[in-house]
């Protein structure tokens, strides 16, 4: 089939430039959603819309630039619209208005055929409850995306075996999903997504159904894979710890609107409102805040010989190292050893204890 050669073409563009630009995205669930977009633009809230017109506001004026090759986390509680949002990226849900540009193309303008081609070759998705085919073995589940694309069986088997091995499921190829634990099933889901070799990976609460320990393992695995794969990953979660650990960028949603965007340091140190502050309160700050976010500029000429801490260290590690040395402040240094800033134990303690450190 002709699709087979197209897929090899895709394999060459592994280093990806698939950034995702979401602009003015609105989604209203109801009988005649288009009629109410203007009202929502003019400031009608979710509650008002639901009460006056019986329409549910799913997404309200979403603007996000998701950089290529990074992990973008979308966080929110149930009903915040995060699952709706991720389904707009591969258009499992039709938007009411807005645009989603990927690689210069607007997903929302695609015809049915273009969309199918886009889903087959450019995106892969991992689901909360795995979405595996119960009547197929592990290997046949992993080859599913390739099979749909029309890749020849022997070749897709090879690819699948490689990914099954990478996610640690060697030896389970001929098992059925219901013979595996939840964590293993999600590894199958991940292997299926990675086999597709798509530049965009959509993960919808992929780890939310797993036990905490297994969840941590899966997060570690994803981070390891990502250092090598550099995919554009959109990761949905309701767990702030998970968001902080995985996200290069984090968006927090509530009632279909974005209430804060930024990296983990922004969220932890400068929460946008009470709602986020309440989330942040229970997080182990030492594990996520980095020295860079707390340090002050280095003094111009300083003869003192202070210990050096690497940029990017967490406060937890920094505090441990400082305590072990006999000093109470240290230089923060970049990759080349040049000083970037100065940090003291007092600053660290302050950042660990208070809600707004800087």
């Amino acid at each position, binding site marked *: 089939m002709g699709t087979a050669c197209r897929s090899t073409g895709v394999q060459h563009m592994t280093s990806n430039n698939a950034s995702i630009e979401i602009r003015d995205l609105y989604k209203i669930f109801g009988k005649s959603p288009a009629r109410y977009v203007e009202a929502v633009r003019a400031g009608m809230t979710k509650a008002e819309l639901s009460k006056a017109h019986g329409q549910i506001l799913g997404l309200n004026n979403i603007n996000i630039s998701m950089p290529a090759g990074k992990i973008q986390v979308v966080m929110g509680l149930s009903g915040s619209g995060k699952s709706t949002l991720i389904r707009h990226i*591969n258009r*499992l849900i039709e938007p009411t208005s807005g645009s989603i540009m990927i690689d210069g193309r607007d997903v929302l303008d695609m015809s049915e055929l273009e969309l*199918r*081609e*886009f*889903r*087959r*070759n450019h*995106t*892969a*998705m991992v*689901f*909360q*409850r*795995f*979405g*595996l*085919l*119960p*009547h197929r073995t592990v290997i046949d589940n992993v080859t*599913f*995306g390739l*099979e*749909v*694309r029309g890749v020849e069986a022997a070749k897709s088997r090879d690819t699948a075996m490689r990914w099954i091995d990478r996610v640690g499921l060697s030896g389970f190829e001929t098992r*059925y*999903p*219901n*013979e*595996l*634990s*939840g964590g293993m*099933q999600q590894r199958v889901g991940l292997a299926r997504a990675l086999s*597709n070799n798509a530049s965009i990976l*959509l993960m919808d609460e992929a780890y939310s159904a797993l036990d905490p320990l297994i969840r941590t393992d899966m997060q570690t695995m994803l981070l390891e894979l990502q250092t090598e794969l550099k995919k554009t990953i959109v990761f949905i979660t309701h767990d702030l710890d998970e968001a902080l650990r995985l996200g290069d960028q984090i968006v927090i949603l509530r009632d279909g609107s974005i209430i804060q965007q930024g990296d983990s340091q922004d969220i932890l140190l400068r929460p946008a409102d009470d709602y986020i502050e309440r989330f942040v309160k229970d997080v182990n700050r030492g594990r996520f805040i980095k020295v860079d976010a707390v340090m002050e500029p280095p003094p111009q000429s300083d003869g003192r010989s202070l210990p050096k801490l690497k940029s990017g260290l967490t406060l937890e590690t920094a505090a441990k190292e400082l305590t072990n040395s006999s000093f109470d402040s240290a230089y923060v240094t970049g990759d080349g050893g040049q000083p970037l800033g100065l940090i003291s134990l007092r600053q660290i303690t302050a950042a660990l204890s208070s809600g707004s450190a800087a």
Partner: protein
Amino acid sequence: MDWLFKFPQLDPEFLLAVKRAIDGALKALTRGYGQSIEDFFYPLQRVLIFFENTISNAPWPLVVIAIAVIAWFAARRWTVVAAVIGTLIAIGLLGLWQDAMKTISLVFTSTLFAIAIGIPLGILMNRYRRLGGVMQTVLDVMQTMPPFVYLIPVVMLLGIGRVPGFIAVVIYAIPPIIRLTDLGIRLVDKEVLEAADAYGCSRSQKLWKVQIPLAMPTIMAGINQTIMMALGMVVIASMIGVQGLGLNVLQAIANQYFTQGIFNGFAIVGIAIIFDRISQAYGHRLQKHRGAAHD
């Protein structure tokens, strides 16, 4: 006060005229096109006779072995195979072998036909909502209509014999397979369907790779019900000249042969059990990997 106790009915003359008009039209149709209708169904008649002859004229041990093999492949359990063989032997010992073969042959062909028409109809019903609504109503009527009523137009058009019997059986037995195909597809897990969409399945890929395989246990339940209804109708269809065990029962009723009635009745039950066990066991085997063992 007479009007209170006698329900006001349409003018008897008028009713009579209506009945005459409809019956007359049907009779005219039969007279005018009877031959072409019969010609149209002639190939079907050949198929039915072929099946019946094949199974009736085959050496009995071969038939027993063939059915036992089918039972083994469907159920993979020796108990089922043993029960099937035992039942067949018992039927043979009662002297009902030939009649039983005729009944089995007709049930088999009509079920195959019902499946071949019913599954595509179920798929269509699922895909097009409006058609589905109309078909629900039609199926409701079909399932509540007393089975004897089906016999009348079929006999008028085609006379008595195998073909009209076959058609009546198919019409009577087809609703469950249509309904359960539709239901099975509707019950497929939403997230699995979403996964199929997310990986870019076309409509037909989604249907054949996801929906039908996942609906299969439910469809098998439909096939099972269709078989049972076909078996029931084959007995009733003896009234329009379908041969087999049903005809013996009919004779027994007319002549009050109690024992003949009981023997044939048991033979029908035996055949029902064979069909039921085989199709159910197959359905169960399909379901083996579908349960969510870990949630």
